[in-house]
């Protein structure tokens, strides 16, 4: 497993720390919120203060509590949709790549069709047909998002499976007489891990964006707190025009930070898959005279990977 260790670049560490904080908030957010996010307990439209870190809404709800409470729904939907979409993309992509022939044609066609359909408009259409009771269930929304977001992963996984399929070790296990599912699950799947991880991160990123966009449009139940809903209410009350930035901006920053952390982790995976990218992040330390001249032309020095060399 040592070989799967991600390059320990600052980008990856920053990504892990930020994502870790938000995952923690997902779990403990509703427990540590200072007030009930929905009850109008306070004076209206208060600016940030020590009692209300992010002020209050036009109904007198505590905005900071809403932010903490909203972490759960936002992250859960992102993760659920990401996981479901990734499972779908594995099933479709790996089967298409491995089985080939007519199956491949049909499955590739399906994923190409889903890839060309514009995701968010489709999502909005499906969502507005859903009865209101279903809209308040984050899992239903997550499922619908997964349905619109799996195709990209399937395509990437198919391409990688195709290239793995004819490698010698796969050929060998075929000759030994291993069953098809076993070759797919034991021989091929482990080699897909980096690509799988990157496609999972990408779909979670897409799902968080899609969910908050739907919520911002008021298409999810607006009494279930998530970061998109917060912005919906802020927008509905013209918070920005009234200079209540502390209402509108923090949820947006949270979404952006979650997305950034996922993208940073993705960089780590990219650098793992493609060593040429790894050298790009090298900062040469030490006295100026000892510095190696910056890689500019022709050759890309590859960073010596001291963590992965075991044999």
């Amino acid at each position, binding site marked *: 497993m040592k070989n799967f260790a991600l390059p320990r670049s600052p980008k990856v560490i920053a990504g892990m720390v930020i994502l870790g904080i938000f995952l923690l908030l997902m779990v403990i957010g509703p427990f540590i919120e200072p007030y009930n996010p929905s009850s109008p307990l306070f004076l209206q439209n208060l600016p940030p203060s020590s009692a209300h870190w992010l002020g209050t809404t036009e109904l007198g709800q505590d905005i900071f509590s809403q932010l903490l409470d909203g972490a759960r729904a936002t992250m859960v939907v992102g993760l659920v949709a990401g996981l479901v979409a990734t499972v779908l993309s594995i099933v479709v992509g790996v089967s298409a790549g491995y089985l080939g022939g007519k199956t491949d044609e049909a499955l590739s066609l399906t994923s190409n069709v889903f890839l060309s*359909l*514009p995701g968010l408009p489709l999502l*909005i259409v499906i969502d507005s047909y859903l009865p209101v009771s279903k809209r308040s269930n984050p899992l239903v929304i997550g499922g619908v998002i997964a349905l619109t977001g799996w195709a990209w992963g399937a395509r990437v996984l198919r391409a990688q499976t195709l290239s793995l399929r004819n490698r010698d070790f796969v050929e060998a296990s075929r000759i030994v007489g291993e069953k098809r599912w076993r070759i797919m699950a034991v021989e091929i799947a482990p080699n897909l891990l980096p690509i799988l991880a990157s496609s999972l991160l990408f779909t979670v990123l897409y799902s968080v964006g899609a969910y908050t966009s739907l919520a*911002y449009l008021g298409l999810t139940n607006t009494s279930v707190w998530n970061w998109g809903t917060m912005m919906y209410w802020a927008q509905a009350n013209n918070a920005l025009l009234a200079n209540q930035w502390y209402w509108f901006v923090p949820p947006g920053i949270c979404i952006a930070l979650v997305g950034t952390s996922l993208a940073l982790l993705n960089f780590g995976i990219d650098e793992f898959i493609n060593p040429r990218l790894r050298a790009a992040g090298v900062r040469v330390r030490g006295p100026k005279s000892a510095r190696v001249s910056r890689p500019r*032309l022709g050759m890309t020095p590859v960073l010596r990977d001291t963590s992965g060399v075991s044999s």
Partner: protein
Amino acid sequence: MRVLLRRFGVYLLTAWVAITANFFLPRLMPGNPIASLIGKLTGQVTPQEVRSIQLQFGVGLHSSIWQQYWDYWVNLFHGQLGTSITLSASVSSVLASQIYWTLGLIGVATVLSFVFGTALGALLGWTRGARTDSLIPLATFFQATPYFFLGSVMVLVLSNNLHWFPDLGAYDPNATPGFNWGFIASLIRYGELPVLSILLSSMAGWMLGMRNMMVTVIGEDFVLMAVAKGLPRRRVIWHAARNAVLPSVANFALAIGLLVSGALLVELVFNYPGVGNLLLNATLNEDYPLLQGIFLIITLTVLGANLIADVLYFWLDPRTRTPVTQ
């Protein structure tokens, strides 16, 4: 040519899927959204209008669902997308009056974003490891920021507080719409900030993709060869960039879908006329005929853009002209 025809076939199929989904979704959804809509509308609109909605969505009809599906296609080919409930006008005429705004705004933003993003990405890839790499986390942040959020904040800071840009809307209310200089100037002036906000969020994707591809391509022998020949640096970058840009063009389908989705929300933020604003109103008012029409037109436009990208790819990369199964 066969490759292009195949792609075209995929897009035709996609269009068919979109149209069929439009037809079946409201009929198969749990809780029958159309019936509840008609319940709500009774008394507010004329019986003829209720009847036309019933006809369009097949509520209380005696014909079979396949007959309805056939009729739906016939209507579609006659350009009849039904009547908008809230606007009391035919959906096709509503769309026809609004689509130009969206095509203009998103079209300009897409082209600019692709050109600038790719160019910047090529330069970043070339100077990899240098201080310019610190742009990467920044670009990632912008990429991860929802368009509507970035747009709103830009309106707040640049327009409301600093007054660098005009108010919301698409043109100066004092200008007379038409083909005159004052109107076009205000159109451009009012379009700057929306385009800029779409550009900021969408450019990062092109940029990062291009940078990574550029870093990979620079390691190839032909780049070393170009340097060894003593070509000026500009020519070498151009050589490498031309090869690195191919995956960006090939992945256009993915990118354009995300871009259009984000840009539709930008229209709301800027109160810009167009399909995005229509979409929001249609969903809020449960104006299903309009919603269907919008989805159809967006899908067809995105497919058209993809087709253009494919033709471009075909023209850029000679290898695609001989069909090879990948």
